[in-house]
Structure formats: structure tokens, C-alpha cells
């Protein structure tokens, strides 16, 4: 795990500091800066030192002394800014995750129970459409509907203006301001998960242990929920771990930009706009830490859920 994180940090560092033709000093000094200015900038940001030294210095500031500052706004500390953005992203992803799990399980079970009927086909087609929409576009359309076109109708007049309200400040407003982003973010995953769940359920329902369960006289509901669904959820748990980690680790960037939520993704986006290297480094490392640790957590959870994995150890 640590090995993976170190490799990722080296990779990111190399992308930004050692890509041929990309000189961070030129970027800070601006286009057409004189060689003297360039040299001064290089010196003051420590960019005239050898690459391994620069890397070590950056890691030291990021993890040990935690006083890494922005290249663009001198004096702005990176780590507090990231920590401040984390609750926003967590609120967004947690809410969306609850929505998408509920609906995906609902749709998946319905489609599998009514497999090869019109309802199954329609649900799976909708799911495919959900997977196929660019999330930022869906966000824009949702904004258009709820903020402008139908904002004055009864249906959407409750939607507050774009932005984020902290949970501690006003829980009700927090909820209202996040409903639309939650829904938009959930759509893709509802599609993805309900398709996977349906396929797994249909496969599971053909297994021998289901025939055994039926033969010993269990009701259809018990067969589906206690036996088939439990088996099928295993894949979903590992998918969920990966997706959750990905989203909290900065993957929700697009939806945060479209709905102007000041989360980690937004921070990454702004840092990329002005190529603020310390910020990019910090947000990418934060994302990587999150993703790698959720992956590890999923592997452990796996053992708890799946008896076969437990016995294999």
C-alpha cells in the first residue's frame, strides 16, 4: 500500500516537473519573462535544485511539516484548504451513494424477478441510458430545469441557488442544496449497478443452491432475498468500494464544477486551471490515499461477506 502511494507521488511529480517542454518556473513567472526573472523564480521556489531533492522537499512539506504553500497565492497553506474541502465532497458522495444503492438494488431485483418481460427490458434500457449520459451534461440539464425553466413551478421552487451550505450551519438548507447534485451523481451509478445486479441475480437464480432452497420449501421472497441477493451483492460491495473511493478521492470533480460545490474536485480543478503544483500534488495524493485505503477496506470486507473467501485463507 505504501509502495503504491510512493509510486503514485513520484509519477505525479514527474508528470508536472519533468515532462519535456514543461518548465514550472516559466509557468510561475508568466509568458515572456526575462531569463533573469526566470532564474530568480527558479531559485526562490527551489526549482534550481536537482529533481530528487525537490521531490523530497515537497514530500517533507506535504506530510511531515504540513506547511506546503501554494505557488500561485504565496502564503496560502495547502493542507487546511484540502481539509476544508473534504466535508463538502463527503456530503456529496455519501448522499449520492445512499440514493444509488437503494435504487440500484430496487431496479436490479425487479428486473431480475421479472426477467425477459417488458418491464425488465424497459428498466435495463433506462439503466443503459443512465450510464451513457455525460455526468456534467446531466448536471447542466438539471440546473436548467430546476434553476431556470421550471424554477417557478411548484415542483422545483424549493431548489436553492447553486452552492453549498455546511451541515453544521443549517442542516435543512444543506439537504436542500444537495438534493439535485446527489440525484445527478447517482444516475450513472444506478444504471451501472442495477445492470450488474440483474446479471448476477439471473445467474444466481440458475444455481443449484437456489434449486435446493426452493426444494426445501422456502417462499420465493426468501429465495430471492436471503439466498440469491446475498450472493449477488458480493460483486456490488467490491464495486461500491472502488467507486466510493474514486468519487471521494476527487472523481466527483465534474459534478462539483457544474453545481459549484467547493469540494476537493473543485480544488483540483482550480489548481489545474492555474497549474498550482503544490495544490495538485496535495489533492492527487489525498485522492490516492483515499482510493488505496478503500481498496484495502474492500478486500477485508470481502472476507466478512463471502464465506468462500474466508475458507480460502
Amino acid at each position, binding site marked *: 500500500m505504501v509502495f503504491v502511494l510512493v509510486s503514485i507521488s513520484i509519477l505525479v511529480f514527474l508528470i508536472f516537473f519533468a515532462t*519535456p517542454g514543461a518548465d514550472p518556473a516559466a509557468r510561475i513567472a508568466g509568458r515572456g519573462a526575462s531569463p533573469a526573472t526566470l532564474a530568480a523564480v527558479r531559485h526562490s521556489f527551489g526549482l534550481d535544485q536537482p529533481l530528487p531533492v525537490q521531490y523530497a522537499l515537497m514530500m517533507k512539506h506535504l506530510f511531515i511539516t504540513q506547511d506546503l504553500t501554494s505557488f500561485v497565492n504565496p502564503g496560502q497553506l495547502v493542507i487546511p484548504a484540502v481539509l476544508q474541502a473534504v466535508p463538502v465532497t463527503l456530503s456529496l458522495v455519501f448522499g449520492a451513494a445512499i440514493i444509488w444503492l437503494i435504487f440500484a438494488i430496487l431496479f436490479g431485483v425487479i428486473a431480475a424477478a421479472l426477467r425477459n418481460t417488458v418491464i425488465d427490458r424497459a428498466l435495463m434500457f433506462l439503466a443503459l441510458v443512465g*450510464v451513457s*449520459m455525460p455526468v456534467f451534461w446531466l448536471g*447542466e440539464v438539471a440546473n436548467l430545469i430546476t434553476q431556470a425553466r421550471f424554477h417557478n413551478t411548484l415542483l422545483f421552487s424549493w431548489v436553492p441557488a447553486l452552492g453549498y451550505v455546511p451541515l453544521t450551519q443549517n442542516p435543512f438548507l444543506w439537504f436542500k442544496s444537495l438534493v439535485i447534485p446527489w440525484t445527478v451523481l447517482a444516475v450513472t451509478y444506478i444504471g451501472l449497478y442495477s445492470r450488474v445486479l440483474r446479471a448476477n441475480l439471473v445467474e444466481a437464480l440458475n444455481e443449484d443452491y437456489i434449486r435446493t432452497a426452493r426444494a426445501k420449501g422456502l417462499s420465493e421472497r426468501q429465495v430471492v432475498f436471503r439466498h440469491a441477493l446475498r450472493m449477488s451483492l458480493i460483486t456490488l460491495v467490491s464495486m461500491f468500494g472502488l467507486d466510493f473511493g474514486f468519487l471521494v478521492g476527487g472523481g466527483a470533480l*465534474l459534478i462539483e*464544477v457544474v453545481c459549484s460545490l467547493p469540494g476537493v474536485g473543485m480544488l483540483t480543478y482550480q489548481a489545474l486551471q492555474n497549474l498550482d503544483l503544490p495544490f495538485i500534488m496535495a489533492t492527487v495524493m489525498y485522492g490516492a490515499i483515499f482510493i*488505496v485505503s478503500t481498496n484495502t477496506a474492500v478486500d477485508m470486507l470481502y472476507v466478512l461477506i463471502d464465506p468462500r473467501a474466508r475458507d480460502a485463507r
Partner: protein
Amino acid sequence: MLALLVLVAIIAACLAAPWYARNISQSDPFSSNLDGSVTVAGQSVDIMQSSDTGFGVTPIGPTWTGQYFLGADDQGRDVAARLLYGGRSSLLIAGCATFICLTLAGLIGIVAAFSGGFVDSILARLLDILWAFPVYLLAISLSAVLISHGLKLGPVTVSSDSLLIPITIIGIVYVPYVARPIRGQVLSLARTDFVLAAKCLGVPRSRILRKDILPNVITTLIVFAPLMMALNMLTEAALSFLSIGVQPPAASWGTIILDGEGLLYTRPAVAIAPGVAIMVTVVALNFLGDGVREAFDPRARLRVQK
């Protein structure tokens, strides 16, 4: 089948983009046309109209006929013509990226699994690292650096507005997603009875690779192709939307959505049309992917027969 027809229609429409720009929209979709006018229902209408609030100008909305079918963007350019040109870059990028990704993934997967030992553990470890790396962040970081400066690598110089940059980046970032299953497949193929039999007969490794392993791997890659292309379309749109993909004045479906973002509340057609185009294409690709998988997967065929 329907999916294939839809895809062919979309590709044909995008290939006809220059013809559309010349004969129907009669304007240059890559240069601004701020003080032009267009004839609608016998009347001449300015392309950039003063808005109802008297503050600034708003481009013309959809005319639903000939010129400015979908209206104009904030530069007064015909959105319908740009949509077709944008489809060209989107499809080109997604297609080439898919090709690069599958070729690299197939190569890495086969080399890793077939050579085994040291090479395998190095490659597998590398794939693990890239797997844990947030793909979006990797793509975004690479694009941000390359778009702002271009790439100078020895004799190779790629300018920053070249389509090669998004193609290469999108092609590379998803390699682990395909290479890992391919490696697994080759490993299990190497243990099958027919490979074992070939080995016992003294068939050279290169021949086993060519005759036994490769056909199986290529089948898997073909099954992956439409699904990867769908994924690549979405990634390209996302990168272009973040303005680190296709660079203006060139268009792609992602950049047109970005152009439309500022006009969202006044001229929603600009942003909605390319999104619908992406959605239809990706749905068709996914359907095609399902079809291809059923055609190639013997288990799926068996299930149908039962």
C-alpha cells in the same frame, strides 16, 4: 443491429460535416460571425440579437430550418455545423484511443503472462500501481501539462492543439483496465489442455502464441472494443469540457457543451444537442458491445439454446 445502423448513421453524418457547412449552413463553423444576419421566414434576422433585458447580446436560437438549425453559439457560429465537426473529433479521438488502448493492453497482457518470471512481476506491479491511480486525475494531470506546453521529446514535437494529445492520453490511461484481464486470460490459456498438448508435441512457443493464444486474446479484445470506445467518448467529453481536451477553435462534443454552458439559460439548445449526441452514440456503442459479447461468448450462446 439497430445499434450498428445508428452508429453508421452518426458516422456518416459527421463525415458529411464539410458538405453541411458549405451547402446548408453556408458559414464557416470555425470563425466568428458576430455581425452577420440570416433570412428566417422571409425576414432578415441578426445572428447576435440584443437581449430582452437590453443588456448584452444573445445569439440567435434554433431556426429549425437550413441555416442555424440549432441556433448560434456566443461567437455567432452555426451550432449544427459545429456539432457535426465536433462529432468527427469525438469519434476520431475515441476510436484511435480505443485502438491504442487495446493494442497496448493486448501486448502487455501477452508479454507479461507469456514470459512470466521477472518481466511478469514488473509489468503486473506496474499495472497494479496504475490501477490504484485515479484515472481521471492521471488523464487530467497529463492533459493539463501537455495542453499548456505541447510536447518536445527529442525529434518528436507535438503542438499543444494537436488531437494526438487527447488520443494518446485517453488511449494510455485505460490500458490497465484491459491489460489485467488479458494477462489473466493468457495465464489460464497457458494451462489449458490444448496448449499443453501443443507443448508436448514440441510445437515452438512462437507458434503456440500465434495459433493458440492470439486468436483467443483477439476475440476478447474485440468484445472489449465497443465498451472501451463508449468509455473513451465519455472521457474525451469530460476532458474537453474541462478545456484540457480538444482546443478551440476546433470543436468536439465536449467543447460545444462547454460553449453552451454560458448560454445555458438563454439558448439551452447549444449545450443540450451535443449531450444528446454523446448519449445516443454511447447507448448505441453499449448495445453493440452487448451484441458482440453474445456473439463471441460461447456460454452466452449456450444459455440462449437452453
